[in-house]
């Protein structure tokens, strides 16, 4: 059962990998990374049950947060073309 789920996850990883390598636009690749982050969370969960030691299930939560941060950073880059800088008020010293 878990083996079948693991095979499906590895297949999904491969497909997101193909999307990231083939493109065609940058947004496809970004979506591929985001999907891969989600698949990693699933991988950790399924792998724990597959090997009979699901103690590390909680770590998946933190991975989901990391994935979120990376996506926000990339989107911010597209929106503003930089990672934020000091405002006029802060520069006025």
């Amino acid at each position, binding site marked *: 059962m878990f083996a079948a789920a693991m095979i499906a996850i590895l297949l999904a990883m491969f497909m997101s990998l193909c999307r990231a390598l083939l493109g065609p636009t940058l947004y496809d690749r970004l979506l591929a990374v985001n999907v891969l*982050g989600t698949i990693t969370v699933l991988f950790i969960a399924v*792998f724990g049950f597959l090997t009979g030691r699901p103690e590390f299930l909680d770590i998946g939560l933190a991975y989901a947060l990391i994935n979120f941060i990376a996506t926000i950073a990339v989107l911010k880059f597209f929106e503003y073309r930089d990672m934020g800088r000091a405002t006029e008020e802060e520069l006025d010293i």
Partner: protein
Amino acid sequence: METLINIILLTFLAIIAIAITRIRHLLVTVVLTGMFSLLSASLLVSMDAVDVAFTEAAVGAGISTLLFLSVLALTSTEELAGNRKFSSIAFILVSITGAILIYGTLDIPKFGDPSAPVHHHIAERFIYESPDEIGVPNMVTSVLASYRGYDTLGETTVILTAGIGVLLLLGRGKQDKETD
């Protein structure tokens, strides 16, 4: 099953690594390095090193992507067309270095080998003797604070120095305001 998963993940890692060297668009490269980190984190999880995997995901996929993007915001996102001719000297050097590294791994005990020296040399003494020798019931604490106390002291010094450096860099603007 685990071996098969490891082989598949390593294949994915190799594919991404080759793609990173071929692609000239730097933003795509940053995206692919994020993918590389996530996949190697999965690989480390499947090798029972969840703490290392977590660090890899946080630093590789999280902070590094942020730093790379900050740099790309300051520079261009396209790599300059440099000299891309095949250099045989470089190829031979890289091959020799790789061969030496693989030769170095031949002596290392097999993955998960219970008779590896690390499980026999001093670990048993820590387990059986540390409550009497150190008097601390927690084994990890006695190793950290007593057996390798100097090492821990050095580590905390490094962290303290890094913290002071960050505080000096980040707190500078505010201090200038107060002195003005």
